[in-house]
Structures are given as structure tokens and as C-alpha cells.
């Protein structure tokens, strides 16, 4: 065969091949093969090559390997050199390709940490939902100043592209190589800081870009951002005004009050409501004073020896002043009120117009109003006991005003998850620890969810309390609700207790529960490994 090729003696120049293809395309019955391309004299030109078809095929047989063997690569028209700073532009080269990636700034993580991440990234290996552990890995890596190996960049980018919650963590650790890759793929553009923080872009920006710009600018320069909005607020359409006002939530401060106060007179109700919701968070405002006065008028005292708080319902017609300060229908609850009512188990309580107004007023008025009327938080909360509108209103005020003093007092009676971030972790753990120990299997879930909101990692003591209580659970589906939470929050010191728990459930009747506990143990030990391996740069 090789002799047939090498001994062909056929000139393998392009036109002959093209001529051959032309003949083959139209067929020999319409076009004869020119003699020039026939491979006469080759070993193939033996019997059977008397027909045109055979001659075309023989020519193809000889010329095709010639073409394959004689193929030469294209020359690159100008490519970036190895120097990252040299994009080729200076040398006058026009190239569609990017310069090589600059060197990474972070050292690569330890081999063990990389192995753990491998386990988490390969689908279906160890964990049904490794998301929490991946987040933990990313957080620890970011804190430890290390990066994943380059081979893991692609799976990380792909996963975070599909799951937005992972993006900040991934963007924080992918380093130069990750940003270099992301710059070449539109679907990875989220890795790069793409938000334009240049205020001069405001004038020419479209609606979505204005919103992005305002949000980004509020984080770094809230004053400038506010002034941009202030100058244009009168001319923007209502829907966009409301959107932009809501964006002032980032970086909110007393300097924003004059603008928000003026927006209470806006033409659009949505804008008025957005401004009022932000002013709820600024109790020291003029609106705060007005609402304090309105609330004070409703607060009374009963009893001479043991003073009790009495709160009257406001009048049906509150007057134009209060309507301005509390825009919108009071019976339509804000998202915060809905969440609180849900956590209080008051989701379906319907209230009259006057009760709803009182709730609105209590939620928006400064909490200091009660102190000025001479009442401690505990007394107010006791009086609110059987008045849902007061409880919800107070809780909403505590969350909006982020008042730690009131939060501690309210939390003592009502361990709402929304209050947990405002309460010192030690106090939250102490209160919730008691509830964990006393909770029935079904009550356990809400208490643990509240404990999940504690800002700091659970202490060893609290973790032990939780595991002790959890070990008494006998129904696997109860545990499904909070297994991942435990895996995320438990202190690693409880690992021996969890091992004992595994052994205790290793009986026929408790198989499903046993599986749950084993998965919990796996996740906990994985989390500990991640923490240890990524603690500080190697």
C-alpha cells in the first residue's frame, strides 16, 4: 500500500486535486477525467483502471494521502508574546486573541483542601447537596488568602453561573486566572466587577443601568448617589422612581432624611410607601417626632400601685397629617410584617381598620416613645401580650430600628428568628438552649431555625445541647428539616457525640434515621477538614 503512495509520482499540487473533485462532483458520466490527473504509471494503474470511474477513484486514493501528508499550518498573523503586559497593540499587531493570563496573587490551597473541593464538585459522589460545604470552602479560602488549583476553576465557574448564591464566594477566590477566563466568556462576566461606578454615566444610562449604578454607588459614596437621584427624581417615571428610592436602602443614613421627607409628597403612592419604609429605619427624623406625638396621644396608664400600659386604638379618620406619614392601606402588610406574623404564627389573623392602623403606627414610631412615656420594654411587651397588632408592630419596629435593647427584651418572650441577629449570641444561645431542651419533636424545627440565625458559630455547649436533644428524635422525616442546618452550624467538638448517635441508631427499626445521622457526621467532619486545611495561607 505504501508503495502505491510513495511510488505514485503524482504532482500533488492543488489545482489537480480541485480538478479531480470537480469531476467527482458532477460524475464521470457527464465529465471525463482530464488525463493530467490520472495516476498513470502507479502500481494502482493496473487491471480495472480502464474505466473513468476507476481512474477517478485511484487518483483520489493517491492524492488524498498526499494532501494529508503535505498539509501545512497557517501562520499566526501576530500573537501576543509571553509577556502579559505586551498585548501586541504596541507592536502594531491586530489580533483577536487575548494576552496570556497575568500571574495569580494568591498561593494555591493545600493538596488536601483541593481534594476536598474535588469531592464536593463531582456530582453525586458524597453529598446530596454539597452547596453549604462549597460555600464554607469558599469562605475559608477567601479568609485564608488562598485560591483553588486552576483545574477547579471551570467546575467552580460553571456551578456558580447556575447558582447565584455561590458567585460572590467564587469571584473572591478565582484570582487572576479566573478573571482572565471570565473576560473571555460572556456567561462568566459576573466574575468581573462590571458595575460602572462613574457618576457621569448617570445621564446617559438606561433604566437598568441607572439602578445598577445607584446601588453600586450607594455602597461606596452614598451622598453622591443620593444627589444624582435628587436632581432627576421629578422627571423619572413613577415605577423607576420607586425602584431607585428602594435602592437607597444601602448606605441609608440621617443625611437621606430631607429627600425622603419630600418624597412623602410624591405623586405616586408606591414612591411614598418606599420613602416611608426607609424612614421607618430613621426614628430620629421629623417624621419620627410626628409619629411619636401621635402614638403618645394613644398611650395611657391604668392602675395606681401597679402601673399598666394601655394603648387606645386610633380614630377611624386619623387626619391628613398621619395619612401623609403612613401612606398606603394599613391593612396591606409590608414584607417585614408578613414575615413576623408568620414567625409568630399569626399569619391568618385578620384585623379591623383601626387595629391595622395602630400596628402601622407602632411599627413606624420611634421605640423611644415608650420610654418617654415612662415605660420599660418589658412592661410594654407584657401589655401587648394579647394584642397581636401591638406584638407585630413592636417586633417590626425593633427590626427596622435595629434596637438591641428592645430586641433582648422582646426575644426573652418571643424567640423570633428575625430578632436573633440583634441579640448578643450568648444570650440568644442561652434562651434558645432552654427551648431546644424543652421542645417536642415538632417544635424543634422552628427553634433550630431561629438558632440558625445566630451571627457567630454555635459554641460547643450549645452544640452539645442541640445534639442531646436531637438524639431523642425517633422519626427520620423530622430530622430532614434541619439536618443541613446542623451540619452547617454544629461545633466540631460534638463529633464524638454524633458518632455515639450513629452507633445508637444502628438497629433495624432506625435505618432511615441512621442514614441521616451518618450524612450529618460526614458533612461535619468534612466541614472541620475544610476549616483546618484553609486556616491561613500555607
Amino acid at each position, binding site marked *: *500500500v*505504501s508503495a*502505491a*503512495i*510513495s511510488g505514485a509520482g503524482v504532482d500533488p499540487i492543488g489545482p489537480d*486535486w480541485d480538478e*479531480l*473533485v470537480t469531476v*467527482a*462532483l*458532477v*460524475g*464521470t*458520466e*457527464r465529465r471525463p477525467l482530464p488525463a493530467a490527473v490520472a495516476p498513470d504509471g502507479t502500481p*494502482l494503474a493496473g487491471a480495472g483502471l480502464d*474505466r*473513468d*470511474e*476507476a481512474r*477517478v*477513484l*485511484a*487518483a*483520489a*486514493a*493517491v*492524492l*488524498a*494521502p498526499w*494532501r*494529508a*501528508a*503535505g*498539509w*501545512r*499550518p*497557517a*501562520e*499566526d*498573523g501576530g*500573537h*501576543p*508574546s*509571553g509577556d502579559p503586559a505586551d498585548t501586541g497593540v504596541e507592536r502594531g499587531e491586530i489580533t*483577536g*486573541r*487575548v*494576552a*496570556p*493570563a497575568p500571574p495569580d496573587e494568591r498561593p494555591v490551597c493545600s493538596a488536601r483542601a483541593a481534594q476536598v473541593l474535588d469531592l464536593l464538585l463531582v456530582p453525586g459522589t458524597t453529598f446530596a447537596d454539597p452547596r453549604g460545604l462549597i460555600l464554607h470552602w469558599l469562605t475559608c479560602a477567601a479568609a485564608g488568602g488562598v485560591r483553588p488549583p*486552576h*483545574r477547579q*476553576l*471551570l467546575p467552580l465557574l460553571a456551578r456558580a453561573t447556575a447558582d447565584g448564591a455561590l458567585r460572590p464566594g467564587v469571584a473572591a477566590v478565582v484570582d487572576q*486566572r479566573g478573571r*482572565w*477566563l471570565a473576560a*473571555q*466568556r460572556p456567561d462568566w462576566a459576573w466574575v468581573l466587577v462590571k458595575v460602572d461606578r462613574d457618576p457621569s454615566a448617570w445621564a446617559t444610562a438606561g433604566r437598568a443601568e441607572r439602578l445598577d449604578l445607584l446601588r453600586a454607588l450607594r455602597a461606596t459614596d452614598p451622598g453622591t448617589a443620593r444627589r444624582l437621584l435628587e436632581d432627576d427624581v421629578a422627571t423619572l417615571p413613577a415605577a423607576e422612581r420607586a425602584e431607585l428610592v428602594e435602592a437607597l436602602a444601602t448606605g441609608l443614613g440621617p443625611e437621606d432624611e430631607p429627600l425622603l421627607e419630600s418624597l412623602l409628597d410624591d405623586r405616586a403612592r408606591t414612591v411614598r410607601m418606599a420613602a416611608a419604609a426607609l424612614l421607618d429605619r430613621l426614628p430620629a427624623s421629623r417624621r419620627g417626632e410626628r409619629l411619636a406625638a401621635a402614638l403618645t396621644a394613644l398611650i395611657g396608664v391604668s392602675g395606681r400601685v401597679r402601673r399598666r400600659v394601655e394603648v387606645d386604638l386610633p380614630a377611624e379618620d386619623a387626619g391628613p397629617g398621619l395619612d401623609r406619614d403612613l401612606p398606603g392601606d394599613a391593612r396591606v402588610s409590608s414584607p417585614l410584617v408578613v414575615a413576623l406574623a408568620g414567625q409568630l404564627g399569626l399569619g391568618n389573623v385578620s384585623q379591623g381598620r383601626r387595629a391595622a392602623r395602630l400596628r402601622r403606627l407602632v411599627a413606624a414610631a420611634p421605640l423611644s416613645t415608650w420610654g418617654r412615656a415612662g415605660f420599660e420594654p418589658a412592661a410594654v411587651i407584657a401589655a401587648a401580650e394579647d394584642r397581636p397588632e401591638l406584638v407585630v408592630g413592636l417586633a417590626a419596629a425593633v427590626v427596622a430600628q435595629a434596637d438591641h435593647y428592645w430586641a433582648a427584651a422582646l426575644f426573652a418572650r418571643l424567640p423570633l428568628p428575625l430578632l436573633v441577629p440583634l441579640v448578643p449570641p450568648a444570650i440568644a444561645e442561652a434562651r434558645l438552649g432552654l427551648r431546644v431542651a424543652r421542645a417536642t419533636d415538632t417544635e424543634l424545627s422552628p427553634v433550630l431555625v431561629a438558632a440558625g440565625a445566630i451571627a457567630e458559630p454555635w459554641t460547643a455547649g450549645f452544640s452539645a445541647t442541640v445534639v442531646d436533644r436531637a438524639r431523642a428524635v425517633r422519626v427520620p422525616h423530622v430530622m430532614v428539616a434541619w439536618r443541613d442546618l446542623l451540619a452547617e452550624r454544629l461545633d466540631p467538638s460534638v463529633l464524638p457525640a454524633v458518632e455515639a448517635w450513629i452507633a445508637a441508631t444502628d438497629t433495624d427499626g432506625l435505618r432511615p434515621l441512621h442514614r441521616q445521622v451518618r450524612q450529618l457526621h460526614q458533612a461535619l467532619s468534612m466541614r472541620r477538614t475544610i476549616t483546618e486545611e484553609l486556616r491561613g495561607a500555607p
Partner: protein
Amino acid sequence: MKAARGLARPGPWSETGSTDALVWGRCQGSGSTPYQVTVDLTGPAFRCSCPSRKQPCKHALALLLLWVEGAGSVADVDRAPEDLARPRPPEAGGRSAGATDRPALADPEAQARRRAQRIDVMDAGIDDFERWLHDLVRQGLASARQQPYAYWDGTAARLVDAQLPGLAERVREMAGALHRRSDWADHLTAEAGRWFLAVRAWRRRDRLDPAATGDLRVVLGWPTGRDEVLAGLRGPNAEPGLRGPNAEGGLRGPNAGAGERVTDRWLVAGVHRTDDGRLQAQRTWLRGRGTGRWALVLDFAVVGGTLRTAQVTGSVVGAELALYAGSEPRRALFATDPHVEEQAGDLGPATPVAGALAWAADAVAANPWVPRVPVVLERVALSAGGPGGGAVAVEPGGAMVGLVADQDPWPALALTGGHPTPVFGEWEHGSLRVLTVAVDDTLVPL
């Protein structure tokens, strides 16, 4: 099962049949090619060419239903057609996964008879194929492109019947390539030339040397059994080759024939895996540290089965290889269990792009059907956006080659960052498939 019910009627079925052990048929699915369905009643085991990963798929179940309920619509015959009774060879010359190619203790006389029968069948098939090739060229490739898939599939089916599954596979692939490739006219002309070359080479098989014989067997799809390779020149049935009754004088050198053994410390330069929905295939490229020779180890498994564990890219394994007949680079088997000796930090001797192309040209000259050759490039930068939009490998000197279309370039880009690095890959029809990159003194598989 519900889907199977719908298919359990004679309508979509053709060429059905059954024996005591086997039920088979072709089922017209949504594609133009009917699926080949076989049910082994002794297992029961199910085999179907459809892309479904369900085992058994609806076609196999429907075939069973049709056979049980169909009142003779699946006729009994004495023996199953060859292509259905055996899984299709995964690659020309590949060892059929899970199939026992021949009884362990073969009766030499019966074996010789079977071989003679096979050669008769192949002779007839080759004649038929040559007539078809002539028709193709007489009527013109442009009109062939207008033909439905069935035109190519029909020819492929006849080639399978003629025990030429390797050619059948190439013909079948052409149907899709004609509509996928922009250079389809060049491609079909060249491929028709290679088919014609196979026809002519078969006719003069008694004058071919062992290497060319091996290459021809691969392109025709006449598999060489594992035991034949291992038995080499020593066994009683050594090297059956293609020799016909008059071919005893065929050239047989110690080199290039089946069974040649090479002992070396082999660098595992790269591994490539494919999974087409029915079959998993694995190519392992080895390079002798001492001899400098390349060898290719192929493994196959049906989907759902387990491929033999791949050697780890970058490790150096000591082993004796038994080589298949053929030109360089040659297919091989591990004759002894490979033991890992060390991890290599580099790919060994590398060449510029020009050198790799020269080696590829030598390989094409020796074996015009060679599908791909292994190349180690000493320094190329990978880039996502070449002039045509595809990924390219660029040499600092300026030579630029494209990456194969089926390779996702991003893993390689993540590893190299666009910096020039040594790479190992397969040179395949004018494109490079990067299998391994050397970064930071480590060989990293892609």
C-alpha cells in the same frame, strides 16, 4: 413499558427473526436509521443501537412483546445475521466488548473452514462495494449528497453482511458528515479514494507485508483476537492474517506482525475516553522511555459496564506490550501487568509543530487510513478565539493549528492561562486534540 406497547406491532419492524437463544429485528425510530435490536433470551440480555440509556430500552421490550404475542411476525430461523448476533465492533479492528470472539479451544480444521468461508463472503462484499463506488463516481458526488440516509445505511448494512464492518462504519458516518462539513466534497472524494484503496489492497492481500495487512484488517473491520495477539508467533494458530490458500509466501518480518513484544518503561502520555450512548471507548497512548516507540492501548465497555481502570496520565509503568500487526503507531496489549515506577514531570522529547507534522506525514505514507497519530509539541499557547472563531494552538514561531471541534478548550485554557506549554495530543485530520498539558512540572490530563 407503555412506550414499548406502542411499538409492539409489526409496522415499524423489519428484518425480524429469532432462534432458540436470540430475537432480533430493526425498528424504525425517529431517526432515519432503524435501530438494531437484539435480545439474548438466555441472559436475558438486551442490545439496541438506540441512544436510550435505559436497559432494556423500549425497542427491546417491544421486540420481546412482538415475539411473544406476534403470532409469527418474528419468524424463527436457524442462525442470526452476523451483525446482529454480535455487537458491532466498536472501532475498526476493535475487540468486541463482552463478546467471546471464538471458543477457547478451537478446532483448527473448523477454524480454517470458517476463515475460508469468511474470505469468500468478504470477496463478494468487496466486489459489490467496488460496483457501488463506481456508481457513486459515475453519477457524481453532488447527486449522492441528495440521497437520503437510507442510501448510505443500505450500503453499510450490506458491508456488515459481508463481514466488512469497518468499511460499513465509515460509510455510515459519511451520511452525517456530508451535511455537517463545509468541505464535504473534498472529504467524500478523499474518503472514496481510501475506500477504493481498501478494495484494491484486499485484492492483492497476498502480496502485502504484515504491517499493511494489519492496517487493512483494521480498515475492513476484521478484528484480531486478544489471544491471537498474546499468542503471537509462538502459538499453533499464530498470525492467521489474511492469507488465502495461495498466500503462504506473504512477507512476514519479526517487525510489524502481530505478537511482537516490547518491554520498556512506558510513559502514559494521555488518555481519551468517549461514550456514544452505547459504548464507552478508551484510548491510552504510551511512549517507551527507552525505545521511544508509541503504542496505543484500546479498551471498550458497553454503557453501564465498567471500563478497565485507566493508567494515570503522567505515570511511568514498566510492562511488556504485545503489539497488533500494523504500521506505527501500533495498537498494543499489556502482556504483563503494568506496575507504576514513577511519576513523570515532563512528556519527554518534543518537537515543534513542523516536526509533528512530518511524523504525521510519515504515518499517513505508511498507512493511508491512519485515523490519528500521537504528537508531543514542545511549546504552544492555547487560545479560545482563532481566526475562524474556533480554539487554536499557536507556536511562538508562528505556526497555528486548530483544535478538534469536539474538544472543549476551556479546561486547557484554565490550566495554561494562554502561556506556551508543552502539550500531548492526537493529530487528527488536520486538527489537534489536546489530551495532556505539562504545567509546573506536572502532566495534567484534560
